């Protein structure tokens, strides 16, 4: 193809991609066009052409920086929130949980507060209030909320204990000093049996995927997202396809991984993890893939 035609068609492509929001594709075509123009010796308006293209690229860079930093759960309009409630929740509790899952914590919090009046939902509402406070405010806020309930009689001792059992391990993990006061219920000392319920599963958030920022190897400095295939408490199992084995080459059992992003349906948080096991799958359809077990250390 004639070089000026070639340049024209690259610019045409770049323009279409840009108009469709395909910013990386647009940038590539602009750069390719720019490269061709630079090589032509005698071109009258060479400099102004190159300048114009550079400006376009700059504009794209600005725009992609903006979309790149867009919040993963922006505050929605009331109408949008209503829709989410109705689409993803059957009863009032589920509706409020849906709001929290889509990151609409402020309104979710207000709805959970209202649900405290409802005997049937009270305990779940209480736990979710703690959950929202942990996601948006601080540990102190969550603790203050617990303390307040502790001094009132909104919850029964059994319910309050269930909330404590949910919150305490989270505080422990973050190294929060003072333990929460333990509620004392109506004592039934007739039989003196001591029995503590196992901690509820939900104390650890469901983690759907994690992002690892590599500190060495070919992926150095890049964050790669992995799906979590299985979770049991703070142990996450990932299946890494054999084609991607290069990525985890430098990860060995016992290695700490700093700066891990954890993505869960209700929140996103950073922490560290340690490689518990790394095994090659020997048989079945996933033969040759790797199974990586990571233990969440701090989150």
């Amino acid at each position: 193809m004639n070089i000026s035609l070639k340049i024209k068609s690259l610019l045409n492509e770049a323009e279409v991609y840009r108009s469709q929001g395909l910013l990386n594709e647009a940038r590539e075509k602009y750069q390719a066009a720019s490269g061709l123009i630079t090589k032509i010796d005698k071109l009258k308006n060479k400099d102004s052409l190159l300048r114009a293209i550079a400006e376009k690229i700059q504009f794209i860079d600005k725009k992609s920086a903006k979309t790149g930093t867009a919040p993963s759960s922006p505050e929605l309009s009331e109408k949008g929130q209503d829709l989410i409630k109705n689409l993803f929740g059957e009863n009032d509790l589920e509706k409020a949980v849906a709001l929290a899952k889509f990151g609409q914590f402020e309104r979710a919090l207000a709805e959970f507060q209202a649900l405290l009046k409802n005997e049937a939902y009270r305990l779940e509402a209480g736990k979710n209030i703690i959950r929202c406070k942990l996601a948006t405010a601080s540990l102190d806020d969550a603790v203050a909320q617990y303390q307040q309930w502790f001094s009132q009689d909104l919850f029964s001792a059994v319910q309050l204990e269930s909330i404590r059992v949910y919150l305490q391990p989270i505080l422990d993990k973050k190294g929060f000093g003072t333990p929460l006061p333990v509620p004392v219920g109506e004592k039934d000392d007739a039989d003196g049996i001591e029995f503590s319920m196992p901690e509820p599963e939900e104390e650890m958030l469901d983690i759907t995927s994690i992002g690892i920022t590599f500190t060495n190897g070919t992926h150095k400095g890049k964050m790669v997202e992995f799906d979590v295939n299985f979770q049991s408490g703070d142990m996450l199992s990932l299946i890494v396809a054999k084609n991607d084995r290069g990525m985890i080459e430098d990860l060995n059992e016992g290695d700490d991984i700093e700066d891990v992003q954890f993505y869960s349906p209700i929140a996103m948080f950073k922490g560290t993890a340690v490689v518990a096991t790394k095994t090659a799958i020997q048989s079945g359809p996933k033969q040759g893939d790797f199974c990586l077990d990571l233990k969440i250390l701090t989150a």
Partner: protein
Amino acid sequence: MAIFNLKKKEIECKVVFYGPGRCGKTTNLEYIFKSYKKQITGEMVSINTEGDRTLFFDFLPMGLGKIKGCDVRVQLYTVPGQVKYSSTRKLVLRGVDGIVFVADSLEVRREKNMLSLKDLQANLKEYGKSIFKVPLILQYNKRDLADEGIPLMSTEQMEKDLNRQLKVPSFAASAVKGAGVGVTLKACLMETLKSLQREFKWAE
């Protein structure tokens, strides 16, 4: 999961438009909203923020009227394409009854199509569904751009990339012009209703 009310003879089912970012999912819904006024039973709601058309999802309710004695309502959704919204994608996909996979015909988006289809398969699997069994239609969108000299993949190429194993119905389309949008939707609704009929046997 479709909501099926045997007493009232009502079905409400969920169809999701899936595909990579910017392939034209929202544009499909916009065209449906404009062109099937009689069947649209409410507003099209796009849950998004400024600067980005699909942070979360779009939603459009439709009513198909009585089919074999049953009142059929459909909720159409789109999912956000970008990698970082994977948890929203999963949420929207929950309980899906039928899927339109919108693929971008642009040559430069070839790999993104394949990754998105793989992502769909993985997400369905988490809900215990197989991509081979769920009602699914492929749409090869943006065919109009060939006239503007933009490199597109041939539909044969796209069939090979995306539909070699699935072997589901596929349609070429230009969502901005509306071409192919209606047939895609109709095919998907047909497949979806057939599969619901097999499950619930409402039509006697």
